């Protein structure tokens, strides 16, 4: 019995550290709607700064003072980031801020290695909480007890702050209706800055408090960020109590789960999230999202098919691209194939995001399923390449059909997180089912047949399929189905009233996007000659998101440019510099500032401004639509 109580307490201690970080993320998202990918980076910075301070300052006061000072210093950095960077892009399309915070995260990962060196750092134990307390023969670390108390204390302070202060009232009001708060004359800028500062403070404090238990290292951010997001979503976005309950739930399930299934930790949080979101679409304590005032995909410039001239230009560009083998070497051609494959992958996600208004955080699942489809068909069933290429993506289709059915029941960030959960479940199956998938050692030897093996042949194959994919998706965008899909995106209510079955349309779109991603994955398997669980991992899903956002989410096929720019730059930087993440992150941040609608989106509106002297008209139209919602 004593063992179970101690295991429960251990789970509570884990929950407390998780909650500290999660609460900050939840507050930031609730008010600013920023999906703050950099939250993990702030957590890590908190740990690093606290390490330095606690090593310099001596005694108990030095330790605790160092922890708090570290959190304050990092919060100040957060304020700087918010004022210099994020303020510029609050009005950019939804999720665009994700791009900025993603760039920051990349930079911080390299910066901490530059500043603090590559070694894992062991911080001091907390003065006064070094040992353990005997509990019926079981040892409970006293630091765990400290954390168990701290969690609810922070929860209480936050509750008081939000319920009993004027600032808290304003924050809650802004969480519910930002525009109304602004209309009532509240200075939004400072409200947002202060909320961001509080959120970052909590993240950094969470990181700093890990010093006595953890090793400070440059991978801390990625370790925590996804899990924290999951906790926030399980609890319900913007709900602090929800985040607390979710942290306890997840930690306890893990603490007791490993007693029965020692391998459960790798997937547990995602399983819990999938179940919770299917049963309660807005998390445990969340409320249905208020209808968006600014519809996400509503463009100032209505979409139109390409004019004849533009079609010729596109064709000419394709011909130029197809002529590459005439003057480029094998390496350039292989990189070209990879870029073409990522163009397919990015446009498939772009279709879902911009036309369907459904941002998926787990799109790599279908890419990976396509790749594994190829591996199974070509390697195990021994089918010829053409047949495999045609059938392989069907695994992506199957996955998209099953998961899409559940995912489209949700919307917004909940939709995104459910797709992430599904992707992680698929990933963990590929990772764990060693006898079939080879586990993380993957499936090797999936090379193309002779007719496609040469770099130029494979390049033409990839380029041809990429062009085909872009054309087909564009045709779908401007087909009746595409219009119906845009209708469900722009106004669920009105589309329903004219007889559009929104869920069904969205489900179909999800399957189309998943299959297209599967095609990309299938080609990728042949390009690399091997398939790994990495092919469906979170980093790949994030890459796809970045490509779409970089190109411009409000365009018809901006993802093409986003994919080319991001992938080419990534490959080039990794090859050329030691600090590729720092440079790439910096570049992403610069693009965010310079092209607040994405590269293509911003260029398009610049051209339209030049060509059209009365740009005000569509804007007025949109605002009317907004009022009518």
């Amino acid at each position, binding site marked *: 019995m004593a*063992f179970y109580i101690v*295991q429960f307490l*251990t*789970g509570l201690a*884990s929950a407390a550290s998780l909650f500290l970080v999660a609460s900050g993320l939840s507050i930031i998202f609730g008010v600013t709607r920023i999906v703050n990918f950099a939250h993990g980076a702030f957590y890590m910075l908190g740990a690093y700064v606290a390490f330095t301070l606690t090593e310099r300052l001596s005694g108990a006061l030095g330790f605790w003072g160092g922890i708090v000072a570290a959190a304050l210093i990092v919060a100040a950095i957060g304020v700087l980031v918010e004022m210099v960077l994020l303020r510029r892009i609050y009005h950019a399309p939804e999720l665009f801020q994700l791009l900025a915070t993603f760039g920051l995260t990349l930079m911080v990962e390299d910066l901490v*290695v530059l500043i603090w060196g*590559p*070694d*894992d750092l*062991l911080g001091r134990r907390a003065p006064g909480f*070094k040992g*353990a307390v005997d509990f019926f023969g*079981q040892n409970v*670390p006293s630091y765990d007890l400290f954390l168990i108390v701290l969690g609810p204390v922070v929860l209480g302070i936050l509750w008081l702050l939000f319920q009993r202060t004027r600032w808290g009232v304003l924050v809650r009001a802004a969480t519910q209706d930002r525009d109304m708060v602004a209309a009532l004359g509240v200075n939004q800028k400072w409200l947002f800055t202060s909320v961001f500062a509080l959120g970052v403070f909590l993240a950094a404090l969470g990181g700093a408090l890990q010093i006595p*238990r*953890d*090793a400070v290292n*440059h*991978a*801390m951010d990625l370790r925590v960020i996804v*899990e924290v997001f999951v906790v926030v979503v399980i609890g319900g976005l913007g709900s602090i109590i929800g985040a607390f309950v979710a942290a306890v739930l997840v930690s306890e399930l*893990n*603490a007791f789960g490993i007693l029965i299934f*020692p391998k459960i*930790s*790798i997937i547990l949080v995602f399983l819990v999230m999938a179940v919770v979101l299917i049963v309660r679409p807005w998390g445990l304590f969340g409320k249905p999202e208020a209808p968006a005032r600014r519809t996400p995909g509503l463009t100032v410039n209505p979409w139109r098919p390409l004019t004849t001239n*533009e079609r010729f230009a*596109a*064709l*000419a*560009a*394709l*011909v*130029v*691209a197809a002529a*590459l083998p005439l003057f480029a070497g*094998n*390496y*350039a051609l292989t*990189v070209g194939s*990879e*870029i073409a494959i990522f163009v397919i992958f990015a446009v498939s996600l772009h279709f879902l995001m911009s036309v369907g208004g459904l941002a998926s955080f787990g799109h790599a699942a279908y890419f990976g399923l396509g790749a594994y489809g190829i591996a199974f068909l070509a390697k195990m069933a021994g089918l010829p390449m053409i047949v495999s290429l045609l059938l392989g993506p069907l695994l992506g289709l199957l996955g998209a059909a099953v998961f899409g059915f559940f995912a489209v029941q949700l919307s917004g960030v909940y939709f995104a997180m459910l797709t992430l959960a599904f992707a992680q479940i698929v990933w963990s199956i590929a990772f764990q089912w*060693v006898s079939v998938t080879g586990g*993380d*050692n993957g499936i090797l*030897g999936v090379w193309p047949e002779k007719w496609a093996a040469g770099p130029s042949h494979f390049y033409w194959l990839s380029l041809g399929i990429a062009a085909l994919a872009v054309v087909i998706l564009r045709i779908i965008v401007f087909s009746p189905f595409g219009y119906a899909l845009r209708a469900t995106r722009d106004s669920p209510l009105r589309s329903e009233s004219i007889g559009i079955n929104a869920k069904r349309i969205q489900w179909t779109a999800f399957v189309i996007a998943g299959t297209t991603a599967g095609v990309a994955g299938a080609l*990728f398997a042949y390009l690399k*000659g*091997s398939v*790994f669980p*990495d*092919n469906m991992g979170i980093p790949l899903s994030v890459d796809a998101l970045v490509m779409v956002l970089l190109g411009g989410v409000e365009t*018809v*096929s901006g993802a093409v440019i986003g994919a080319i*720019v991001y992938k*080419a730059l990534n*490959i080039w930087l*990794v*090859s050329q510099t030691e600090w*590729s993440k720092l440079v790439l992150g910096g570049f992403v941040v610069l693009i965010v500032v310079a092209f607040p609608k994405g590269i293509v989106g911003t260029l398009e509106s610049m051209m339209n401004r030049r060509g059209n002297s009365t740009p005000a008209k569509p804007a007025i139209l949109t605002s009317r639509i907004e009022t009518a919602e």
Partner: protein
Amino acid sequence: MRGYFVGAGLAIALAGMAGPAMAQSGEIKIGEINSYSLLPAFTEPYRKGWQLAVEEVNAAGGINGKKLVVISKDDGGKPADAQTAANELVSSENVAMLAGTFLSNIGLAVSDFANQKKVFFLAAEPLTDAITWSKGNKYTFRLRPSNYMQAAMLVEEAAKLPAKRWATIAPNYEYGQSAVAVFKKLMSEKRPDIQWVDEQWPPQGKIDAGPVVQAVAAANPEAILNVTFGADLVKLVREGNTRGLFKDRKVVSFLTGEPEYLDPLKDETPEGWIVTGYPWYAIKTPEHDAFLKAYQAKYNDYPRLGSIVGYQTIKSAAAILAKANSTDPEKLIAATEGLQVASPFGEITFRKIDHQSTLGAFVGKTALKDGKGVMVDSVYRKGADYLPSDAEVEKLRPKD
């Protein structure tokens, strides 16, 4: 209109990469790939190690008069990116051979690439047995003692312990899984009387150490096998120390004696663990002294195991290139099979039968000295003594 961008973008993107870098006749290039950005704690000393080797090789007149050049690329910890890098090295840099890699899946990906493109590949660090056995191919050689070899070295010591009830803690991925599997198999052969009472599989890099330590303690084992390393190891040790998990229990641990993983434990280093590692401070051989002196003179820092691996990878590669006196992959393979090379750990051989080198490892016990973790009573175990019989290896490895 978008079309302009597609073409222009592709053209710009590729023009930069198109420049073919022809090998100058006066130099020989080796293409090196490793997870520099993902695992700097290991790869920084590793880089220093191979840079020292390049300097020494060229100071001694290069390779049959030609200058040795190493072109190094980062794989970011992703197999797919490692292949992109390998392709660049082979296609545009025209390297004579590939070398390096740390993670097992990346090692396997590059090895498969090498097999497909018929390029010589000297795997430096990946520990998986598959790279020389079940998925071995004729173009791939491996330097470091494999999972099997390190397990066999540890089992030799572990079998002497009286402990009968064993628990295992290992990261949940191929390395951890196969380390535990081999250890269990070899251990049960030597000691049919032991019981495996618990196993814990925390995700790599994400151990929730408290519950794991509690769960292992609840099974009340007499001895524990640990395979975690890096930040996970630090967390496990800290929780274990606080909760008294290691008190009166024997622990056998993979890699923990390597300075990369032992040094961060500082004054929390648990005493008496049986580990494999690299006690650079306690090795008194002329070969190692020479290496140590050169390394410390150049970097003003002590070597980690990564330094040895990096150093020996390039030293071996140079010996191979010199013996083959050609960059033809077939000749390189012929030169490597059975090749004997000097190393800081003494002479090693690249076996013909499975392309594994006989580089060994040090087995010893952890101890605390002046608030720092060290390895004591360490003995060098030659790799050749810890490999299965040739008949068994033949069965494990596919025919070329």
